[in-house]
């Protein structure tokens, strides 16, 4: 993240910056929550924190799901900074995108990522692992490199074993992500001895625990991005293996997987982060005050609210559909418009303009069939997962909400075009 200053904006220029779509909310050096972080209704993340802080026999594994753009990554970052979590766990957080190709993801890729990141991050923080373990890891590395020559990190005489292993894990992760051929080869090697890889992970985890005094907690983001089929292949077909590592893990999973029948057995280990509900189910004319207050707070921590007309703010919140990312998009686009008008405040006309722009963006990429599905959902709010609606969910053309039961509605900016 570098040197980003989380300062409340007093002008449009700064406000434009603060409403960046993928702005990660890093915690401060003293462990305090990010100034832009807001607690969402019901504080659902507390449930996960409580579960992690509860006593256990074997380090727990949890599944973390939520709607697109709802702030899962932000919550994982926030979890990392929780003082009680940090006291009990040695947490690391990474995106699987950085370690593997999410378009072609496999359970072996995830396991290798877990081991590799744990090793690299521990070393980066100055951790020292026992010499024998390092030697064994090096032998394991040698066996992999023997069969997959393209991940050779270079055995130069005099290079410290640890540095060589770091290079290997970094190299393997890059190759897994970028080179399909190497990815296939590495998977084949791991296949011959998955137990060996689990042993590597468990050995590193045990060493970290003994040396550091805390249990490793691995938070893996973006595991909700692969296809449902791939996700099932990892978390259902290979569930036993994915539960084997001797460290606490929070796996992100897509909402499609979360709500699939096959996931029933492990739903008690899962937490779902919903979008902020702005209207009750089938009651568009009613407002959920808590939802609107939450989004208002989202804006007010980032920007002086005198920069936006109250009605315009309400309208922007309505158009956001309760999705933080879309709120940021609307605000940013509105700010751009207001700047160009040399206005002192964002007005309704700016918000409408932003909504039109977003609407047009969707018009460009949605096909007739997509629009038909959206119309159906708008009329019935009915939930039935199918492959066809998955891209609509991913594109945020269709939004999910949770209110006891789960229901869908169309992105608010699209409602006016459904009947064109």
């Amino acid at each position: 993240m570098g040197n980003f200053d989380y300062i409340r904006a007093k002008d449009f220029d700064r406000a434009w910056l603060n409403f960046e779509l993928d702005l990660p909310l890093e915690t401060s050096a003293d462990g305090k929550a990010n100034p832009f972080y807001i607690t969402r209704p019901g504080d659902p993340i507390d449930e996960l924190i409580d579960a992690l802080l509860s006593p256990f026999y074997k380090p727990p594994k949890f599944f973390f799901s939520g709607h697109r753009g709802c702030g899962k990554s932000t919550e994982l970052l926030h979890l990392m900074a929780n003082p009680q979590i940090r006291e009990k766990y040695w947490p690391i957080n990474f995106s699987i995108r950085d370690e593997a190709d999410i378009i072609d993801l496999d359970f072996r890729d995830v396991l290798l990522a877990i081991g590799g990141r744990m090793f690299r991050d521990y070393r980066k923080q100055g951790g020292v692992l026992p010499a024998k373990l390092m030697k064994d890891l090096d032998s394991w590395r040698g066996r992999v490199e023997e069969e997959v020559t393209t991940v050779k990190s270079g055995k130069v005489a005099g290079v410290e074993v640890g540095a060589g292993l770091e290079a290997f894990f970094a190299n393997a992760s890059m190759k897994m992500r970028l080179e399909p051929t190497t990815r296939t080869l590495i998977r084949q090697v791991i296949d011959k001895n998955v137990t060996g890889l689990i042993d590597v992970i468990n050995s590193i985890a045990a060493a970290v625990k003994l040396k550091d005094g805390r249990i490793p907690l691995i938070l893996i983001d973006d595991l909700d991005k692969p296809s449902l089929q791939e996700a099932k292949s990892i978390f259902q077909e290979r569930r036993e293996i994915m539960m084997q590592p001797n460290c606490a893990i929070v796996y992100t999973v897509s909402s499609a997987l979360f709500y699939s029948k096959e996931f029933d057995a492990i739903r008690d280990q899962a937490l779902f982060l919903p979008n902020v509900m702005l209207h009750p189910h089938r009651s568009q004319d009613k407002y959920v005050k808590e939802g609107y207050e939450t989004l208002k707070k989202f804006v007010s921590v980032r920007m002086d609210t005198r920069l936006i007309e109250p009605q315009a703010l309400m309208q922007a919140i309505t158009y956001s559909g309760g999705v933080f990312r879309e709120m940021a998009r609307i605000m940013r686009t509105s700010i751009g418009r207001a700047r160009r008008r040399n206005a002192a405040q964002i007005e309704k006309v700016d918000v409408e303009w932003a909504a039109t722009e977003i609407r047009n963006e969707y018009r460009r990429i949605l096909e007739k069939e997509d629009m038909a599905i959206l119309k159906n959902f708008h009329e019935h709010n009915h939930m039935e997962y199918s492959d066809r609606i998955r891209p609509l969910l991913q594109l945020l053309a269709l939004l999910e909400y949770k209110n006891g039961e789960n229901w869908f509605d169309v992105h608010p900016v699209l409602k006016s075009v459904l009947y064109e």
Partner: protein
Amino acid sequence: MNKNSNVYDMDSVEIIITTLREEIELAFRWNRPSIIFAIYNNVTSRKTAQTQIVAELLKSEIDQIIYQVEYDINNEFTALIERISGTKTILSIDPLNSGTSDSQVEKLIAVLDSHKNRIIDNRIKMIVWLTADESILFAHMAPDLWSSRHRVIELGSPSETKQSVAIFADNVVDEEIEVIYNFNDPLSSIDPEIENHLAMAVGAWRMKDLTKAESFINNAMSIARSNKSKTSLLVCLMAKHFIATEKGAKSEAADLLKEIRDLESSSKNLFVKTITSTLMSESLVQKFPVDAQSVIISTARELRSQNKDFEAIGALVDFANGNGSANLVWLELGDIYAELNIFDKAVVSYEKITEGTIDQNMVTKKMADCLCKIGEFERAIELYKKLIRSSTEENEVQEAWNNIGDIYRKTSGFDNAIAAYSMADQAKTSINRYESELNNRQSIDSSKLTPEMWNEIGNIFVRTNDLVEAESAYSKAIELCPDNAVAVGNLGILYSTLGKRDQAMNYLLKGIELFERPTEKSSLWNLVGDQYRLIGKYTEAITAYTTADELVKNSPDGNLSVNFNQLFSSISQSVR
């Protein structure tokens, strides 16, 4: 959808461009990423818009470089991101063959999607140019990246845009804006025969023979013309242009450049926009290695990567037979034959290697190993002995002795094997000493053996993979002297290898008590750790490893004891 409205009730193109400029300016000002999709109806409107955008960006007084990248394999894109990160650079991207039935947009989507985090983390500002159909595909294939968009601009028909005479590429050249072109994709699609000629051309160029290089390029061009492959012809023209530049033939170079431009503009499918010959040469010579032997070896390896082993062999044999100095090629042939388990031919190839720059000991060893594979043990032994005489590397000598020992063991020459292994232990290089040992060998009276002798016998049995006998020998040593730390440790190690965990732990822990030196205790603690790991007791394992580390931390001798090191390698070899 009402597509008849004026660009969906949006502003004019001028305002779109201005909006875009502001977005990019803010992104630069705050050093934030900016992901913009520009959707266009036709190539002319795209080129016009690109020109306008360039002009708008220049107005903002930022010193900018626009890269029009034809994407490539992932590694190249990663390197590109890293290169432009932190610079005042817009990345302008479109798919190969954009807007045609051969649009490579899917490949582009895959590259960009897999780099999403990297693009954002490196705060890249990029404009992705897509047709309407391509944008639909993009959004559906990479919804996550699409959702991370900052802006989408839509360019209307040519009548709605300001007409501009100069096309983007010409503007680039005139304005001295650098255009980077990446060549690997086209090179990978070239006919292998053409590629071979280009490889030879590069080899000739490396050897400063420009005439020969030009001749190879002309051969490649003939094939390209007869195949009617514009892509290949273009690559050949560029290579020829490069050689012409090298020769200082300016007029020829200029003519070739014109031919290149004509070929570009005449074909809608061509990927080339504008290139520099330097870049072309860098790409080509990076692809092909240094000298003639390396060229042919590289060609052979390319063929092998396509599972054309015997074609590769054919190419190497032809070269080697036609060239006096081909040691590298003979070595490569030998290695290929060995890999394919055609050991007799491997030997023949290795034999052809003459004295020169190649390590003769390495060749001797390879030959000996191959001879072992085909049962020519006598010849193999002679070669191992030759190696022992000439080598100055202790490891090499030991290995050769061990190999001799293995041969004798296979052929039931047990005594010879023991003798050879003993020589290995001492890394003796004297063949005479070995032969005199054999001659003086006497039978042993077991009742007079000391515990130390029983221990050594155990070690030898381990090397010959007679582990039951080894267990018996060590046990005998311990029976005679229960406090013999070495024998106790050895038996513990043996049991750990045999998977007899309880017995292993028992003897290892006892060995730890008996040994006085920290290094030896440490070695055994590591083995104890291994036993714990095997039964999933990771905490106990790490505790054991940590204890091992602590013992040697302050010890003057931090290395494993020689005995254990040798025993480890013996056991591991014997059980393989």
